[in-house]
């Protein structure tokens, strides 16, 4: 129980830190983002009602005399209500709406790709570690190359080969633009077809990290006494590998999930850009290019919350697979 409380408390602190960071960054940076935003709005013929102005000021820092502390609490209040301001590039849509339309694409794409590469990497890593001293060892340097390849470059190569040259997959986009998004077979299959190359990029670039980590832990686990005991017990190799070595070796991989997830999310943002995928990463870059600061901030918050949430889920799962955490805390 203590473990859960600690974890929950930690993620609350992390969430608070992210919110505060989000509050502080625009105020620490040179220039006056609010003025830039309002000027942009006017260019687009948007009217500046006082509420919109106020919400921008809370997000990005006001020029007025309002004390920073009261700005801070008003900002937190706005966030809690889900008010992230108005997007300039998609005026007059609120930031929350823009994010809501893009988020599902990224969550599904990155979620499935991460899960696939995790499972694949763990399984292969366990096998390579177990069969140490055989030809499988040569997989290790091969995955090193893959792990060092920049995500977006791999994406470019995949596009060049499979979309441009061979024409097997579409060049860009999340679905066939002639279709309207709906939960029907035609649209879903189009989405899967378009998502294959981006997902492949993420899986290929991230599987090496899982594989290497798992392989190293497997090698360590294999010299543990419980594996020797299992061998002395006359168990079959497959059973020793799965129930003794892998079962123990997988723990650090799960515990280190947070580190790896950060890489995957970062890589996915750039990957989306290459594929012009209608997800949150492309939106973030659009926001940066258009100086749409409110949208930029909102997306950063949403990505952070999603990553924190995923890590929390993994930490809770960890307690299930390592009984020792439940007592010692």
């Amino acid at each position, binding site marked *: 129980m203590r473990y859960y409380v600690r974890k929950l408390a*930690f*993620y609350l602190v*992390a969430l608070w*830190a*992210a919110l505060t*960071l989000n509050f502080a*960054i625009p105020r620490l*940076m*040179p*220039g006056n*983002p609010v003025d830039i935003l309002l000027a942009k709005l006017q260019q687009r013929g948007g009217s500046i009602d006082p509420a919109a102005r106020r919400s921008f000021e809370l997000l990005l820092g006001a020029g007025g005399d309002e004390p920073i502390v009261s700005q801070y609490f008003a900002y937190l209040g706005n966030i809690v209500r889900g008010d992230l301001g108005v997007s300039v590039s998609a005026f007059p849509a609120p930031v929350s709406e823009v994010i809501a339309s893009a988020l599902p694409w990224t969550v599904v794409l990155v979620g499935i790709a991460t899960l696939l590469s995790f499972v694949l990497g763990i399984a292969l890593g366990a096998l390579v570690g177990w069969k*140490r*001293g*055989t030809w499988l060892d040569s997989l290790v*340097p091969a995955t*090193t*190359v893959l*792990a060092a390849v*920049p995500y*977006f*470059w*791999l994406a470019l*190569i995949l596009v*060049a080969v499979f979309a*441009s*040259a061979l024409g097997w997959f579409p060049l860009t986009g999340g679905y066939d633009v002639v279709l309207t998004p709906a939960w029907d077979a035609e649209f879903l299959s189009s989405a899967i077809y378009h998502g294959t190359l981006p997902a492949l990029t993420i899986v290929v670039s991230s599987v090496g990290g899982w594989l290497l980590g798992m392989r190293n832990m497997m090698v*360590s686990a294999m*010299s543990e*006494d*419980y594996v*020797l*005991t299992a*061998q*002395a*017990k*006359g*168990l079959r190799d497959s059973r020793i590998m799965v*129930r003794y070595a892998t*079962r*123990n070796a997988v723990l650090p991989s799960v515990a280190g999930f947070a*580190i790896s997830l*950060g890489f995957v999310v*970062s890589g996915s*943002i*750039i990957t989306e*850009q290459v594929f012009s995928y209608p997800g949150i990463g492309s939106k*973030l*870059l659009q926001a*940066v*290019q258009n*100086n749409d*600061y409110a949208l*930029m901030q909102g997306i*950063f918050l949403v*990505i*952070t919350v999603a990553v924190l949430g995923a*890590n929390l889920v993994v930490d809770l799962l960890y307690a299930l697979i390592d*009984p*020792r955490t439940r*007592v010692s805390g």
Partner: protein
Amino acid sequence: MSTVDTKRRVLPRWSPKLGVGLGLIAVVVLVGLVGPLLVGDPSAVRDIGLTGPGAEHWLGTTQTGQDVVAQLAYATRGSLQIGVLVGVLATVLSAIFGIVGSYAGGLVDEAFSLFSNVMLVIPGLPLVIVIAGFVPAAQRGSWTIAIVLAITGWAASARVLRAQTLSLRNRDYVAAARVAGEKTWRVITVEILPNLLPLLASQFVFAVILAILSEAGLSFLGLGASNSSTLGTMLYYAQNGFALQREAWWWFVPPGLVIALFGCGLSLVNFSIDEIINPKLRDVPRRPGKVAETVAATPAERGEDDAVLTVDGLSVVYQGKNPVLAVKNVSLTLRRGEILGLAGESGCGKTTLAYAVNRLHRPPAEVTSGAVTFHDRDGADVDVLGLGVEELRAFRWSKLSMVFQGAMNALSPVTPVAAQLDDVLVTHRPEMTRDQRRQRCREVFELVGVDPQRLGSYPHELSGGMRQRVMIAMALLLDPQVMIMDEPTTALDVVVQRGILLEILKFRDELGFAVIFITHDLPLLLEIADRIAVMRDGEVVEQGTAEELHLNPRHPYTRELLDSFPSLTGDRGGFVRGTPALHDGGVR
């Protein structure tokens, strides 16, 4: 810790991986350092437009006719600069938060550790993009980008360094320096830092890879430093110049390839550093062939009617540059129902011998000669060293089971003990139903005096004595004819030890299996063993009944061993056999 020892571990061992890694790094660094001196102006515009590779331009030109080779050389230099800069900054940050915090301990450590963990879970690149988005392009210099990347990239290695420092901090030589009143900075720089060097080096290498990749990503998005050209900027221009659509592979393939090769080189070097940090990862020799191929001797005849295990002229060698003969030509006979004690100091080969009997020795250990013969109850003689893989598997535990040294690690920490007992029955007795298996597990638990309720427990929920009882229960599951016990009670306190020894004697009487009991404690063997073999440097120097050895030790080494141990009760011989009342009072 002597400095010689430290130095030896700081330098990685030479291996092909390290060679290839260093080679890749050298080539890329050379391109970055020397390349710009040899090539022309990277931004010189020619009116030839996008041209493929040829004699004049080895890697062709960009859409404005700029030479790709020249651009590549300058871009490599730019990427390397930023990579090393960020690598240094991030490593310094992680050292401050990881090493200093954990060394100081207390609140400082808590705060630093919380800070690192928070920085770790906040995704780095989105944060960098947001910061870069706020800084106007004109003000985004290399230093700005480097500092932002360092600030978002140090947390993971701070965590690794913290864990290692915590373990170093509690080692004896560091504690000694602290007690001696050495100044904190001195303890950190003299005692701790040298031992962290391999880890710091590996974290630095890792930070460089990460920095080059992140910078490339940032520049590719058009958010990089405005005054520098890096491999990422090249890819940005290639993407915006529609290199992909125009199939100008010579433009967008080389920059990524340079990053990948350099990263790969650094990772390969990191492997070698990892092997210093974690010696278990060092390359092992290929798996050995069947033992039978290297062993010439034939199985022994059943010399005496009541023999259950005969070891004949067994030798075990640890192969390597300087092969070590760990067990030299050892011959032993174990009779049915007897306890054979195997005594000797640690390192004398007694454990190696015990493992080799069951063929549990691992490379580089190898049985080079001799025979191990098991004489089954039903009259069959089994040549253990000649068994096939599947026969050996079936032989283990059902005929010969083992109780290992240190039961803490012999049980898997993440599985309930019931499952670890059940495993044995599922594999060896597939005909048993689930209920029968559960019943059998309860039986053996009751036999060794552990409450069957404990079957659902995890090893960490049991005391040391209970874990060892569980191990003995497990060894009894299949009613084996031989049980090898390797220091089964050494790690336990005297009272628990006595309870367990009494029970081993009881089982032997009731169940009639033979025991090879390995220990460094010769006086203990005098009390429980029927016969004793004394080992030294891989050889059996003396063999005889417990009485013979006790009253008339022939070998000087035996006498030495006898004198070196005070008896547990101070009264030799009265420890186990002399106190029958304890049979009931065994510790639970």
